[in-house]
C-alpha cells in the first residue's frame, strides 16, 4: 500500500532519474572499455618500452 498518492510529477522525476542512472552506467562501461582497449593495445606504453624489454 502506498503511503502517499502518486503524482504525475513523481513519474516524470522517476523517468528522469532512471535516464540519468542509465547514462552514468553507460559512461562507466565506456570509460572501462576504452581503458581496456588502450592498455591492451599498448597505447600508454613509453616509446622505449620494447627496447627496455630487450625486444
Amino acid at each position, binding site marked *: 500500500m502506498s503511503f*502517499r*498518492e502518486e*503524482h504525475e*510529477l513523481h513519474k*516524470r*522525476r522517476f*523517468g*528522469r532519474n*532512471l*535516464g*540519468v542512472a542509465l547514462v552514468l552506467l553507460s559512461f562507466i562501461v*565506456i570509460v572501462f*572499455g*576504452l581503458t581496456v*582497449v588502450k592498455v591492451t*593495445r599498448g597505447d600508454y606504453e613509453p616509446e622505449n618500452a620494447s627496447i627496455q624489454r630487450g625486444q
Partner: protein
Amino acid sequence: MSDASINTQAGTGDAEFGDYFALLKPRVMSLVVFTAAVGLLAAPGSVHPFVAFCAILFIAVGGGASGALNMWYDADIDRVMKRTQSRPIPAGKVTEGEALAFGVALSGFSVVMLGLAANWMAAGLLAFTIFFYVVIYTMWLKRWTPQNIVIGGAAGAFPPMIGWAVVTGGVSIESVLMFTLTFMWTPPHFWALCLFMKSDYKDAGVPMLHVTHGRRVTRNHILVYTLLLAIVAIGMGFTDVGGPIYLTTALVLNALFVLGAFAIWRRDEAASEADDYAREKGFFKLSLLYLFLHFGAILAEVALAPYGLGGW
C-alpha cells in the same frame, strides 16, 4: 518536501528525460552519426571497433550539444515559428538556463572524451564545429545575412571530416570533398523548405533569402547551387572514396536533383500555390534521400572493397 510545495509549472527542473534528449535535435544527430560513420569507415587505416563506436558517440553528443545551445539562443525565434513551437524551451518544459548549462557541459564533455578516445585533431575539429554552429551561425549569421544558410551549412558538413580525422589524425582532399558535398547540399535543401514554409521566417524576423530578396531570387539560387553541387558530387566519384557504385548513384541522383531544381526555377508563385508547393516539397524530400544515398554509396564502396568490387 510535501506535495503541497511542489511547483508543477513547466520549466522548473521537472522536465522528463526525453525533453533533455529533444534538446539534442535527434533528427539532426542521426545525420551527424551517419556522415561521421561514413567518414570514419572510408578513411585509409583502421581503429579498434570500440574506439570507433565511442568516437561516433562523442561526435553525436557534440553535435547534440551544439543543438541545445542553438535552442537556448534561438528560444525567442522558436516561440514565433510554427515549426519550432513544440521544442522543449518554447513548450515550457525546459528553461533557457537549463538548456545553456546542458549544452555547455555536453560540449566540453564530448570534445575532451573524443580527444582521449581518438586524437586531439578530431577533438579540435569537433570543438570548431560546435563553435561554428553556435557562435558563427546561430549568434551571428542567422539574424544578420540572407547568406546564413550558405556559410552556416559548414557546421553540418564537418562530421565526415571529424570521422576521417579519428582514423588518420588529419585532413585530406577526400575528407574535404565529403565536407563540400554536405556544404553545397545545405542551401538548396533549406531554400526549398523556405519556399513552402511561407511566412514562418518572416514572422520571426530571420533574414532568409526568400524574405530579403524574394522567392524569384530564391528559385534562381536553388538552381545555381544545385548545378554547383552536381559538379562536386560527380567529381567526388573520381577520387579515392569514389568508385563505380558511387559514380552511378551520383549521376542518377544529380540528374534528378538538377531536373527538380530546374522545375522549381521555371515556376512562379501562382503555379506553386495552385498545387500547394508539390514540386518544392518533392524536391525537399528528394534532397534528404540525395544526401543519404551519396554517403550510402561511399559506404557501399568501402564494404565491397575487400571483395574487389568497391573503389577504382
